[in-house]
């Protein structure tokens, strides 16, 4: 089709396809707007066309560099500089032991397993049925915590009089109101925010945590998922694919720091510094799935957790180390974080984790209260 267009217009029409091929969402309307915009401004310079492209395709601020590179490659013939990590090594998780149900083996909590190496690697997920989580699909939504929304909805029993519906009844029934029309504030599900540690020390658990996140997303819950390693990555959209294999593969492509170092503090600081991420924790049930072994200064991690605890409705920390009955929070970071946490739970078993998530709606003691009681 493009070949039939005037030669000067062809690169303009082809550009949206280039963007789509690189994962940008571009609609036909936007293409039309782009062409009309270039026509208005006049294609006098590349800089003008670039500005029109930015205005019409509206790439998010995080993807401006990528957008710019694609623009230059398409219109100016520059080579595309894809931001590939320098030290990329592929790690394949074909180990049979990873396919078995979560091991409850306790690793050393000394922090030796943690490293601050900024290692980039890829992950391939092996198809398996770890634990049957189908019951989550069935029950999750009704068991999760709720909050009162601000919208008033028509209800049989309510505190607010619904004058709009009442007048409609008066008109319909010649001045009568057979039953008072009432409204009530409805309940909304609290968002669930999962922060999954994907550092090397958590390698044997991350696959299952991601499967859990996928199941929860498929249960039509309001949930956001991030991975924490040496950096922060939002993987909610990738996990939204219905097919588990596709979802996990998409997530694997998105995350660059699989099984790398442990810079939780830095990753969580990135989370709190980005307003659109931080707003996700407001009033949410936040769950950190991590062993809490931090190589960096623990104060950075504690500060980030403190900020999240201020905005979150409930902050829970699930560590696989807690699978051992002898477990005590000994690391400096975990000890300092304890007063800020509402729950410190066992993250070594998916079943326990799933049950914990389903119990989030019930009133519970805070982690500090539990530890004090046990003492």
């Amino acid at each position: 089709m493009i070949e039939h267009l005037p030669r000067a217009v062809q690169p303009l029409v082809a550009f949206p396809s280039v963007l789509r091929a690189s994962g940008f969402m571009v609609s036909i309307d936007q293409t039309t707007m782009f062409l009309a915009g270039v026509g208005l401004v006049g294609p006098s310079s590349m800089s003008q066309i670039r500005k029109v492209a930015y205005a019409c395709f509206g790439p998010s601020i995080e993807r401006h560099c990528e957008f710019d590179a694609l623009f230059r490659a398409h219109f100016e013939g520059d080579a595309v500089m894809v931001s590939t990590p320098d030290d990329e090594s592929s790690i394949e998780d074909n180990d049979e032991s990873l396919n078995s149900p979560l091991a409850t083996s306790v690793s050393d909590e000394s922090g030796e397993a943690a490293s601050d190496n900024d290692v980039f690697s890829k992950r391939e997920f092996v198809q398996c049925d770890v634990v049957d989580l189908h019951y989550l699909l069935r029950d999750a939504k009704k068991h999760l915590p709720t909050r009162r929304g601000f919208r008033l909805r028509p209800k049989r029993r309510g505190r607010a009089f619904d004058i709009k519906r009442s007048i409609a009844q008066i008109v319909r029934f010649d001045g009568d109101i057979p039953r008072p029309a009432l409204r009530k504030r409805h309940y909304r599900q609290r968002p669930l925010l999962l922060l999954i540690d994907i550092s090397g020390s958590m390698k044997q658990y991350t696959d299952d945590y991601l499967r859990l996140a996928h199941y929860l997303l498929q249960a039509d819950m309001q949930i956001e998922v991030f991975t924490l390693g040496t950096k922060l990555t939002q993987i909610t959209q990738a996990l939204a694919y219905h097919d588990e294999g596709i979802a996990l593969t998409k997530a694997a492509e998105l995350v660059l720091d699989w099984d790398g170092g442990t810079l939780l503090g830095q990753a969580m600081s990135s989370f709190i510094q980005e307003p659109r991420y931080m707003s996700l924790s407001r009033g949410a049930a936040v769950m950190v799935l991590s062993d809490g072994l931090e190589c960096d200064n623990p104060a950075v991690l504690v500060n980030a957790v403190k900020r999240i605890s201020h905005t979150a409705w409930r902050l829970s920390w699930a560590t696989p180390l807690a699978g051992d009955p002898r477990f005590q929070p000994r690391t400096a970071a975990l000890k300092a974080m304890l007063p800020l946490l509402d729950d410190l739970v066992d993250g070594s078993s998916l079943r326990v984790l799933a049950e914990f998530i389903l119990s989030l709606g019930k009133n519970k003691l805070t982690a500090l209260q539990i530890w004090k009681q046990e003492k």
Partner: protein
Amino acid sequence: MLRGSVKLEQPIDVEVALAGTDYIADEGLATAIFIAIKLGKPLLLEGNPGVGKTEAAKSIAAFTGRELIRLQCYEGIDASQALCDWNYPRQLLAIRKAGEQDVDVYQESFLIERPLLKALRMSEGAVLLIDEIDRSDHEFEAFLLEFLSEFQITVPEIGTLTAKKPPIVILTSNRSRDLHSALRRRCIHHWIAYPDADREAAIIARRAGGVTKSTAMAVAHAVQGLRQLPLVKAPGISEAVDWAQSATLIKGSSPWPVAFRRAVGAVIKEEEDMARVNSEIEPLLVEAFASNDRTPS
């Protein structure tokens, strides 16, 4: 005065017109506004708080000579607050007065206009500012889709109302959450970034009354330095303007560095940030004055 007399032939005309209303825009923003006005598309302005998104809408209203209609979004906002509502007391009175006779209580005379309807009905066109759209919920975003694509709205009891003259619609977002792609693709988009020191100094000099050029320059450099620090809330342009004004007011009783330090509350709003800035403000101010080559006059 520019009101209503501006001819827009090129993006530079927008830049000049905005400058006439004391708003200093970069080329990107001027291009986005130009395209939005010419194509009759909504303009979505995103950026950190305090970078001048709302001010941009006010300036557009000023240079186009149109009335600015503002809709402030919040969680739970719905059609009755954004579009229109029925005047229930009047409807009840009309029913009572009619007695046994038939009365149509769903006439337009019983309708109370809210911002969206007001913008649709304004014959000379309006600038509709839908402020902080990210604060509203997904239901409201979905409700806006028909309005933003067709400049029409459907009231179930009346029917579809179409704009006499399409308004210039400006949506702003602090990006506290991601907007739905259906909304984004209907809009011309621009991300307003923090300006460089020179442009920020020019903005401060224009916006802050009684502030000298050298003070504006020093504040602009100091604020640029503050933005490099890992603060919970980086200062925006409006905070920089406040800082310059506050320091100028205090200057009467204190020397410059002390005046800036004492007025730091105008630019730093978080307790944690204040602790950090208090320890680092001295070298920052020294650097700001040095880059300005002299202390403010």
